[in-house]
């Protein structure tokens, strides 16, 4: 089994990777909110430049990063086209039959496209520079004040950790079951979409049943090792907020402020 990391995590070492996950989560949240407060294209371009610099610092290859943006290209294109062909703002630049292209439309198209791309890029940068386990830790920590209002922060975190632990295992199991059924003559590529979906039943059913059985065994093992919820539990892994982390959040705020003012 060669696929390792879940999703988009790109394991290199860089100053961005080394930041505390909480700082990165907060910075991303701030970034997203800030993006909607910026109302000029110049502002967005400034922020975009900063983001590009950040991606460079994080040592993620440009090609890999751009691949993250692929799923949204369709939406971006649609948005741009819509603005370009249906906006009547600004000076008319070009006419072709009843299609009119105005400068306002171009500008709006560019603006919206940039915003979407920046949104996805910031989320992408977060997941590319933060290991899933660290993300789970960061989320648990940030959610823990909610325990006071009875929000099951610890349980949520434990569920995330267990999910991360078992996803590769379940993936291998699914492959194995698929092979076993293929050996019994199952064909997963035949027929129309409905037929194909049904042909996966011999894989889904045992996988699901197996997952429940695993859950039972895991619960027994956890209880046997003294697990009884989050009460009185200490944590082995440590999240230490350092000066660098505070600076990162401050820097993000600063960049956005400049963008907003521009």
């Amino acid at each position, binding site marked *: 089994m060669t696929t390792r990391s879940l999703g988009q995590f790109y394991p290199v070492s860089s100053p961005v990777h080394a930041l505390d996950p909480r700082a990165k989560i907060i910075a991303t949240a701030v970034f997203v909110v800030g993006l909607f407060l910026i109302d000029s294209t110049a502002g967005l371009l400034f922020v975009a430049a900063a983001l590009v610099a950040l991606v460079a610092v994080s040592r993620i290859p440009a090609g890999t990063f751009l691949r993250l943006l692929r799923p949204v290209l369709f939406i971006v294109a649609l948005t741009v086209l819509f603005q370009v062909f249906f906006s009547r703002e600004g000076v008319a630049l070009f006419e072709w039959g009843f299609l009119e292209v105005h400068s306002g439309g171009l500008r709006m198209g560019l603006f919206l496209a940039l915003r979407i791309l920046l949104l996805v890029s910031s989320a992408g940068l977060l997941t590319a520079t933060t290991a899933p386990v660290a993300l789970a830790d960061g989320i648990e920590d940030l959610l823990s004040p909610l325990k006071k209002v009875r929000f099951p922060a610890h349980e949520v975190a434990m569920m995330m950790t267990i999910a991360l632990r078992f996803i590769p*295992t379940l993936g291998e199991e699914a492959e194995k079951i698929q092979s076993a059924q293929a050996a019994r003559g199952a064909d997963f590529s035949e027929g129309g979409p409905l037929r194909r979906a049904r042909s996966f039943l011999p894989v889904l059913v045992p996988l699901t049943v197996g997952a429940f059985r695993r859950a039972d065994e*895991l619960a027994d093992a956890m209880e046997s090792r003294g697990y009884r919820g989050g009460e009185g539990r200490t944590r082995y892994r440590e999240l230490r907020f350092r000066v660098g982390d505070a600076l990162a959040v401050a820097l993000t705020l600063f960049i956005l402020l400049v963008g907003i003012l521009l």
Partner: protein
Amino acid sequence: MQNPGEGTRPGGSFAVSCERVSFSYPGSAQPALSGVSLDLRRGEYVGVVGPNGGGKSTLVRLLNGLLKPESGHVLVSGRDPATEPFEVRKHLGVLFQNPENGLVAPFVEDDVAFGLENLGVPREEMRERVARAVEAVGLQGYERREPHTLSGGEKQRVALAGLLAVEPEILVLDEPTSMLDAAGRREVLKHLGDLRFEKTVLHVTHHLEELLDADRILVLNGGELVADETPERLFSNADLLRGNSLVLPVVPRLALELGFPPAKLRTPEELAEAILARTQSGTRSL
């Protein structure tokens, strides 16, 4: 090193004791265990064998409080697992059969720390104890490995390290090698062997060769304790073996058929020597 919140409790000389314990699974016509009484002295190494469905796994779960007996009493280090499971689990650790489903964390060292986290051990102490446990099972360098990249034997060793970190006096092994290949079994048994003099061990297994060094072997069949014998006596008792679906490993079986004491000869080398020695002394006496 003591676990937090621990005091000493007089437990007598028995580490584990069961008095006429019975248990039935809901919806089952037959009791899984009926009227089983047994004692484990501190430092003993006791095996448990018998056909599947005979009550072995039920016994394990009654000892660590996953199940509560319908009748009878269980005492582990002077405590009742049914009413104080959390306490009992500090003193009794269980190594389960399936190496995959006992590992809860995404990395080896985090999993080894799991039990200590549950006990509220302070972080500094945890690091130390985790490092020692990892070393005890020979997995130094594996700390940041992910469980799904490990072999079966390695996974079981991680699980064992997780138990050892908590430093229980009693270890219960529930068929720990039955899902492993020959190499994995050897690895795990080697580390278990290292522990038998420090801990009280209850070892449930189908592989009789794993119990050659046991002080005693208990036979559970149909929910009842059918026999409590030394390895020597059990291995020589063909009726007992057959009646409980027990199969001797090859060398002891050959030994027995050839008229040798079965539990004393374990390896092919020992058997070969004994055969040679016997015929030599045989010719000499002529």
